[in-house]
């Protein structure tokens, strides 16, 4: 058993909108061990990004707030750190890359300057040393003409190159955890593969754990050691990668797996499960997936199932596997 790096326990992040309180993340548990790549999958709107932003404490300027639970990183409770302590962790021990490489870099600052900032802040490198480190990082992520690119601006680079720059920036301080929120969704298929390959290589070399958020189970199969499946702000299943693909338990996971396009088939997004994700303001009582579930029975609409073990290192939130509870009722 490897050491625990990140432990998210019963995380609740709610958005306070004019229409009401949106429980975007509604009791999420995720554990990431050192060097491990954990995939977070689920349809759009299920709270993946909000979970990651909660970990980074980047919900400032949104109506969202963590209202419950804890986030332990290397034994520290991130939620109780001061702003300053948190800044020392961001970009340093926990780095993040985002879905939109086209808009994630500041258009008026040079590439070099943007990476140097992190390096100066966390590694204390300045001047020539910082410059050399930046060039080294750019070369590491496979950017040609690194010496010139440092002085160029984001608009001079393609999306794939920009995502490489983001990775260079994120990895520049050798983080223990890299949070990647749909890092390849906005990219062409061939570029996607290259970026994933790069992340895989760097994380292996640096022993960086990755929290890989995606809605593409193909990406998960390619990259991850373990998978967390989310639905409507909750974890509905969690398992080892092989276990999950071979022995999925939750009807939602099964649906997701069925909707993966077969190898080499035209790429298809998730969501071919009938029905739509419930509006977070009007989630049904009982199991949130019940209205779309093919194996639903009466009790599902009344009782919210717990996330419970269904096998070795395998947990599922479904009444199908909680017969005792069903009998009791």
């Amino acid at each position: 058993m490897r050491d625990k790096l990140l432990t998210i326990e019963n995380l609740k992040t709610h958005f306070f909108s004019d229409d009401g309180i949106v429980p975007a993340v509604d009791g999420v548990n995720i554990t990431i061990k050192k060097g491990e790549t954990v995939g977070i999958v689920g349809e759009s709107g299920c709270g993946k990004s909000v979970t990651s932003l909660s970990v980074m404490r980047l919900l400032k300027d949104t109506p969202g707030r963590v209202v419950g639970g804890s986030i332990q990183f290397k034994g520290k409770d991130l939620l109780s750190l001061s702003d300053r302590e948190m800044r020392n962790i961001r970009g340093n021990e926990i780095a993040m890359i985002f879905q939109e490489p086209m808009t994630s870099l500041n258009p008026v600052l040079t590439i070099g300057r943007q990476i140097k900032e992190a390096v100066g802040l966390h590694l204390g490198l300045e001047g020539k040393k910082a410059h050399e480190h930046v060039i080294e990082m750019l070369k590491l992520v496979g950017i040609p003409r690194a010496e010139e690119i440092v002085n160029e601006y984001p608009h001079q680079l393609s999306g794939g190159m920009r995502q490489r720059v983001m990775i260079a920036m994120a990895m520049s301080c050798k983080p223990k955890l890299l949070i990647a929120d749909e890092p390849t969704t906005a990219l062409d298929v061939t570029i996607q593969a290259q970026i994933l390959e790069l992340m895989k290589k760097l994380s292996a070399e640096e022993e960086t754990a990755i929290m890989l958020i995606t809605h593409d189970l193909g990406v998960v199969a390619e990259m991850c050691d373990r998978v967390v499946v989310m639905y409507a702000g909750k974890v509905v299943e969690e398992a080892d990668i092989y276990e999950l693909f071979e022995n999925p338990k939750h009807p939602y996971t099964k649906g997701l797996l069925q909707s993966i396009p077969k190898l080499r088939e035209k790429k298809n997004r998730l969501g071919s499960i009938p029905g739509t994700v419930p509006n977070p303001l009007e989630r049904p009582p009982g199991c949130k997936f019940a209205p779309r579930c093919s194996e639903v029975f009466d009790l599902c609409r009344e009782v919210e199932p717990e996330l419970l073990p269904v096998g070795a290192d395998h947990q599922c939130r479904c009444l199908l596997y909680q017969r005792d509870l069903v009998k009791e009722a």
Partner: protein
Amino acid sequence: MFQYFIKRLAGIIPILMIVSIFIFLFVHMIPGDPARLVAGQDATQQDVESVRKQLELDKPLHQQYLSFVTNMIHGDFGHSLKTKRPVIEEIQSRFMPTFWLSVWSMVWAVLFGLLIGVVSASKRNKWQDYAGMFGAVAGISLPSFWMGLMLIQLFSVKLGWFPTGGLDSWKSYVLPSLTLGAGVAAVIARFTRSSLMDILKEDYIRTGRAKGLHERKVVWDHGLKNALIPVVTMTGLQFGFLLGGSIVIETVFGWPGLGRLLVDSVSFRDYPVIQSLMLLFALEFIIINLIVDLLYGVMNPQIRYE
């Protein structure tokens, strides 16, 4: 960038041509007979006609325009009908007071406007924001003559720190430039706030925070550098307006500037002065526009590298 500059500079000439036609026609549409004005109320019709001839007002319009343009090119802007002094002298003595007053007003306006705008945007819906925007609304809506009189009352009459009016030393600039700058500061503050608020929603701002940057750095460096791009245009425009001279401020503070010169010339139908002033204002706007465009390029790499 240099080539671009030269191109823009050359582009000024046709613009000035067109502007001069409009000014010429405009001035000739002002009702009233300038020859009669120059000759005086009790001059005979004959006197009026001879004045008209002397001023070449009897010639066809296109000839008048041609001589207007050729004279201007030779630096001859004619004589004031009222004072009989060369127009160029009239304007020269008034230009510098207005110019420096505008510059100082802009210095305050940019300083306070940016400060208030940035603080308001980064403390959105907190007391700092409400206080800043209250000040901005006050700055826009309080009449400048009232503000000017209040400042005179307090700082000149009561405290005796600054003169009540006129232009003698640097002290004379303080109150009028603050009064004039207040309105512009308010406009800049509001504009900066909304521009920066939009920018702070951008993905790259989140990237900056995710890097571990201090919020101050995120806002004042990463945010403001982007938010300033539209602010610069607006600020240039405001500066252009100030350079035209403010009639109200110049009246309240007894300021020897272009605003009052314009009003005096218009009421006297002193059309050589009016023409030259209008041409000057147009030229000022053109130059400011050019500077703004260049700044745009400096600030926005996407344009600079085209």
